[in-house]
């Protein structure tokens, strides 16, 4: 079976190509024109709704938010009422999770602690995302010396661990309050968002549609706000979601080191570190707040993973 059965090469063609009449366009090659094409976000939402990881994490997060909003629905005990006569009790009808060495009801501490941790996590996430997006988009979009300056500032804050900065500020101020904890986390936690935003803006600003917008006379501010940022924001949202979980852990770590919220406030971090000395006699003191914290953080990380998969065009090809 040599070349006699093979049709002659087309002019200038280096490979033998089947003539069109032999392999005509079939139905599979047709573009579906019956529906309007979905946007990136509509497509992502379409995929998310079918992802069990997303559904599980969304339900868990909604539950935690509900607990944080209405803690009194889950317990009728006062988390700040310590009754030493009832210290270190095993679970009972009155105290379903038992009591701490100080006679606090563990269930109510765990339930009310959700509010503190979730509030700090959310505010810190919003703050770091705003700072990071502004810094990152300015650096990426303007380039030149602005980029150089912002990138070096980012490097400086990136090189200093959050815990270290927080200890310095906390020891100076003496006592921490919720707004200060949030500010400290914002101050040292924005760098990864800034780096991601910068990278995303750098790759977005050279796209054809941005150039078309410039050609149509759009100002660079309009371009940045209308075209570059909306199209570069996907990886930022993913990181911000994961960051929320990381910040909740960071708050707990500060409490553990004794530079977090004062012991009068009810937070998971504070309760976990208080449980250290009672590990032998009342391990449930460690178990319940740790469990609550871990589940919350886990659901935000899982949510981030699910959103990333939904937004990633490579993974989206079914």
């Amino acid at each position, binding site marked *: 079976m040599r070349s006699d059965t093979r049709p002659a090469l087309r002019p200038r063609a280096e490979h033998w190509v089947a003539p069109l009449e032999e392999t005509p366009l079939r139905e599979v090659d047709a573009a579906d024109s019956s529906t309007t094409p979905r946007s990136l976000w509509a497509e992502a939402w379409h995929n998310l709704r079918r992802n069990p990881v997303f559904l599980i994490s969304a339900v868990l997060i909604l539950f935690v938010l509900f607990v944080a909003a209405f803690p009194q629905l889950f317990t009728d005990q006062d988390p700040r009422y310590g009754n030493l006569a009832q210290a270190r009790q095993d679970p009972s009808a009155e105290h379903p999770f038992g009591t701490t060495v100080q006679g606090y009801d563990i269930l109510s501490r765990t339930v009310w602690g959700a509010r503190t941790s979730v509030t700090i996590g959310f505010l810190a996430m919003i703050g770091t995302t705003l700072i990071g997006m502004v810094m990152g988009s300015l650096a990426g979009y303007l380039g030149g010396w602005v980029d150089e300056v912002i990138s070096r500032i980012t490097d400086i804050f990136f090189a200093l661990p959050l815990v270290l900065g927080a200890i310095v*500020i906390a020891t100076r101020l003496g006592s921490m309050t919720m707004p200060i904890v949030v500010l400290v986390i914002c101050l040292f936690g924005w760098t990864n968002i800034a780096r991601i935003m910068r990278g995303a803006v750098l790759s977005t600003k050279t796209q054809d549609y941005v150039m078309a917008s410039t050609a149509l006379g759009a100002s660079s501010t309009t371009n940045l706000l209308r075209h570059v940022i909306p199209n570069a924001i996907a990886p930022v949202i993913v990181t911000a979601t994961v960051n929320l979980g990381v910040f909740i852990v960071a708050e707990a770590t500060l409490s553990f*080191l004794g530079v977090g919220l004062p012991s009068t406030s009810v937070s998971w971090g504070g309760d976990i570190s208080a449980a*250290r000395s009672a590990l032998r006699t009342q391990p449930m003191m460690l178990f319940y707040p740790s469990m609550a*914290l871990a589940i919350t953080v886990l659901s935000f990380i899982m949510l981030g993973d699910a959103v990333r998969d939904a937004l990633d065009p490579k993974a989206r090809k079914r």
Partner: protein
Amino acid sequence: MIWYIGRRLLQMIPVFLGATLLVYGMTFLTGGNPIDTLAGDKPISPAVRTQLEAQFNLDRPFIVQWLLYLKGVLTFDFGVGFNGRPIIDQIAAAFPATAKLAIIAVVVETIFGVAAGVLAGLRKGTVIDTTLLMLSLLVIAVPTFVIGFVVQFFLGVRLDLITINVGRDPSWINLLPPGIVLGAVSFAYVLRLTRTSVAETMTADHVRTATAKGLSRGGVVSKHILRNSLIPVVTFIGADLGMLMGGAIVTENIFNIPGIGTLLFDSIRDNEAPMVVTLVTLLVIVFLVSNLIVDLLYAALDPRIRYAK
């Protein structure tokens, strides 16, 4: 390449200056008189106070103190701590424990993280993959200090297998549990990064070609998949060296190891600015150098990367 290294070294200078200035400013400007902390409950005479302030340059403006400090650093004179011992001696005494701890953490996270990540990535969607992924999520979600407590309590107190209080001049064996705890979170991140990267590389054309030309499975994995998947992992481990120091504060606190983390925590508590700034400077240098090495490793791992201007 020389130009690239030179430019990177130049870029390190402003970061170095900025980080020390930031920490110096935070330690000084936010109030608190270090001499009061030094004196403690004992009353201190004005003459002694003036003399101490002069000795530690506390009577000068903050920016002058910083410049004097920088001058000291450049001449390798780090000064004397508030307890009278040279700062460099104190750091040298604390350094070995933390260095060992960091080495254990990095080795554990790299070997186990990459191995588990490759395993999960090659078998994406199977039971092994799901189990490893859940394990990594759990390690990330549970704070390091809780893992530390639990390890210390069950392996140390209950089973008496490990040393609870590691103490001074620790041996490698005693440092193994705290080192593993320190590396645990990074292990989870390395696992996840490697898994994603391996799974992505597996579908690449050159891997299919390698398989098609008859290369064994092991050959494909080690020569074509692993090498191409390692770039994000190497980046992470490089940046992680700096992060480990933050973690070392926690781990050394739990297992009572007198290392850099403990020293840093104590000197921040005691308002001992020269010590804090020296430690942070050291930390920033470690961070910058490890990042530089990472960037140079890129070229070794990926010949496509060229450092054009």
